[in-house]
Every structure is written in structure tokens, then in C-alpha cells.
């Protein structure tokens, strides 16, 4: 069922900008249209690009926002996971809880 929903109606998570739009809904309570517009403006792309995996794969790579990794799609030296979340927090102008926790524990 999770796969069905992802294919039928989901933005695509980190394959696209679904996680970024989701973060604006969670942290700011933004409705979908507002959240998509906000993220598109921050990325410098169109709203349509946000759920286009072709466009977002390149944009995420350029901005170091984390990409899908598999054996034919490896990006050593590029930010992902926690390191990408540092960049996402800066890009979106939001506080990401785990990033703040990481800084505190690492003494940054």
C-alpha cells in the first residue's frame, strides 16, 4: 500500500523535493501550494520541477541536498544524510531538530 500511494500520488521524497516540501508543512504548517512555492523559490526552480525526479536529481546534486544512492548512482564526497540536512536547514531557513542536536553533541 505504501508503494501504491507513493506511485499514485506521492511527491517522491528525496528523489524529488518531497522531503523539502514536507519540512515546510511540518515546521511552518504551510499548505501545499504555499510550501511548494516557498521551496521552489529557495531552489530557484519551477514548482513543476519539485516533483520531477529528472530535474531534482540535478538540482539536489548541485546544491548538496542529498540524493538516492545505489550501486549505479554513487556520489562519494557529496553531502547526504546529516551533512545534507545542514544544507537543507540553511537553504530553507528552518531549524532542523536533529541538526541542532548534532551540533550540540559534537560541540560545534
Amino acid at each position, binding site marked *: *500500500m*505504501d*508503494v*501504491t*500511494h*507513493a*506511485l*499514485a*500520488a*506521492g*511527491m*517522491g*521524497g*528525496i*528523489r*524529488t523535493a*518531497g*522531503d523539502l*516540501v*514536507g*519540512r515546510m*508543512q*511540518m*515546521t*511552518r*504548517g*504551510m*499548505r*501545499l501550494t504555499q*510550501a511548494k512555492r516557498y521551496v521552489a523559490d529557495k531552489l530557484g526552480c519551477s*514548482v*513543476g520541477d519539485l*516533483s*520531477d525526479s529528472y530535474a531534482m536529481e540535478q538540482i539536489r546534486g548541485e546544491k548538496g*541536498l*542529498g540524493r*538516492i*544512492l*545505489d550501486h549505479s548512482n554513487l556520489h562519494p564526497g557529496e553531502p*547526504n*544524510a*546529516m551533512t*545534507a*540536512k545542514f544544507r*537543507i536547514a540553511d537553504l530553507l531557513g*528552518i*531549524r*532542523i*531538530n*536533529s541538526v541542532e*542536536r*548534532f551540533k550540540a553533541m559534537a560541540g560545534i
Partner: protein
Amino acid sequence: MAEYGEAEAGAEGPTGTARGGGVTERRIPARMGDGSLTHMTRSELRADIEEATQLGARKAKAEPLSAGEIDHVLDIYASSASFTAVDIGEQVVLSCDGGGSKMTGTDILDLLESEQRFGQDILELWHIEYSYKAIKTILPFQQQVMQNAQLMLTAPIQYGAQPNLAFYSRPDGPVANWFELLPRGEIDAARAAIEEAMDYATKDFIYVGEGMLDAGADGLDFDTTGGAGDGDFLSTLTAVEHLRAGHPDAGIEVGMAGEFVIGVHGELAHRGRRLAGLWPKGQLEVCQDAGVTLFGPAVNIRTGKSCAWNTAYSLTVIKPCMEVATIPVHPNVGEGVCGVPVNGYPPEDAVSRAAKAHVEILRCDGL
């Protein structure tokens, strides 16, 4: 009964001949609310949709779907396609309560798979016990998993569990069992028991919620809220207010258990608004007042009705939410709610139709 993909005898094809000799409509594969396959004509599907929206409008004191919306739902359901989807660019955010691949016991691998393979937008760490009362006893274990998962994933991860107020009543909990007191007519004692349970529950929700936010969670999910009635709902709203005050950036999702709040107590109110009997619009409004950031309405499936009927009913009772929402609305399209059959393996044709209908008719913010 006809086999999958076959029409019933005597009624096959758009110009088929009925047993009586008249021209009949083609029968289209359709699902019932229990997930079983049936075949219905376009006219039968339309009749189901029209009946459901009238019933939903009457019960929820809402407007029925418009003629255009009925046609739209009909077009989605009067199809033999094994799968359907929203248009390119119209995709919405998926907040996955109890989500992931449900490979229990593999928390972080499950989350990684959800992010890297399923492409879920908002992930959720959860435990098979899935009640705040139970999670309290294993909080450090869940905190460690959350902390580790946050190091390894990019997508937001919320922590989810259910309020389950009834777990605070005997024999599972410390409080008198109001479901035993009520049938005996001991109304005052039952209400007192509910209020005592609410106090225990709210403290647990806050304890677990703050613990998971301390471990790095991006948000919390109160899943299946109101399952034990208005006391269940109010104890959740009270916890949300407390958590919101201390964590202004945290996502807090409240997903409902059913289409209206059952008045088990009957006199409970949030900021002066009686909770018993609230339909999705009222539920959303009190959630907004409490500081919720994602609201998930749930509309229960009628297993004896078609999925087209159930989806039309769901759309009708949820639609008033969309007019007053100041926060994202993510209808629950899980097993047994909002047009998705009650089935451990909900058929993909039915699930994808429910998803498409809710996104395109409601213009909702996510699922």
C-alpha cells in the same frame, strides 16, 4: 460470481444482451469495501456515488458533491485500469503513519528503504506496540533508534504512536473500566474514570513526545486519535498544546480514528467547544487551535458498499475541512479508511483510485 476480468453472464460488453433480451451496459471491475472484486455498470457506480454523497452531506451537515465532482469520481472508478495516478506535477506530500515497509524489527533499514526506495516524503519511526503508554516503558530504546536514524537519513522523521486511552482502564491500566460502568448506568463514575485516565494519558504523551524530540525527531504523530472517544481526543489536544509551547518548530500530526468523535464521556470540551459528535471540519478546527501542524481526517469504510460509494462518502464529509484549513490536511488513506478497503493487502487498483480521488477532488495537501 464472475472471475476477475470477466463480465457476468448475459451482460458482457457495451452492447451485451441481458437475459431478457434488452441491451445492457458493460460491467466494469469494481471493488467492495472489504477488497473483494465485483462488477458494476457505470450507472450502478453513479448511483452509488450519488447515494453516498447525499448520505454524507446529511450526516456531516455538509454540501453534497457537485455534479462535476460526481462525474470526476465516476470517471476515476468507471475504469478497468489496474492502476491510476494523479497528473504529473499534482503530486502531494505523503506523511506515512506507521509507515515504511512494515518490516518489523528492522527500524533503521525500514526507514532507509522507505526513503531510498519508496520515496516517502515524511517518514515515521514506530514500534509494534504503537501506544504511548507502552512506548513510555521503552523510551530510551526508541530514542537511541531515532538518534541513529537521524544520522543516516535525509528526509524528515517523525515519531508515531496511538493515544489508546482505553489502555489506562482495568485490567490493562490503573483506572476503573468505564466501558463496564456505562452499561450499568454508573454515568458519574464512568466519567470520573475517563477523566482520571486522561490525566495519566496526557502525562505519558508529553513524556514520550518530549523524549523523542530530545532525541532529534522532526515531529510527532498522534495516530488514530479519538479511538476511545472524546476523552482520547481531549487528552491528545492537551498534550499537543503543552508540546507546542515548548517546541515551536516541531511537526505535530494528529490523525483521527473515525469520521466523528464518539461521546463516550459526552461533556468534554476544548476551549469551550464540545468534542463529542465533531465531524472532520470541527475536528480540524480544534486541532488548529491546539497547535497541530498536520491534520489527518479518517472516514470509516462500509465493507458492504463499493469503494466508489465509500470514496464519495469520504470526500463529502472531509470537503468542508478544506474551506477552513490553515494547516495541511492529509486524509488517512490507510487500510479501512477513506475509500481504501479493509484488507491486509488492499488491492492496488482500489488504493490508487482512493488516492487520486482525494487529491483531485479535495485538493488536499497530502495523504
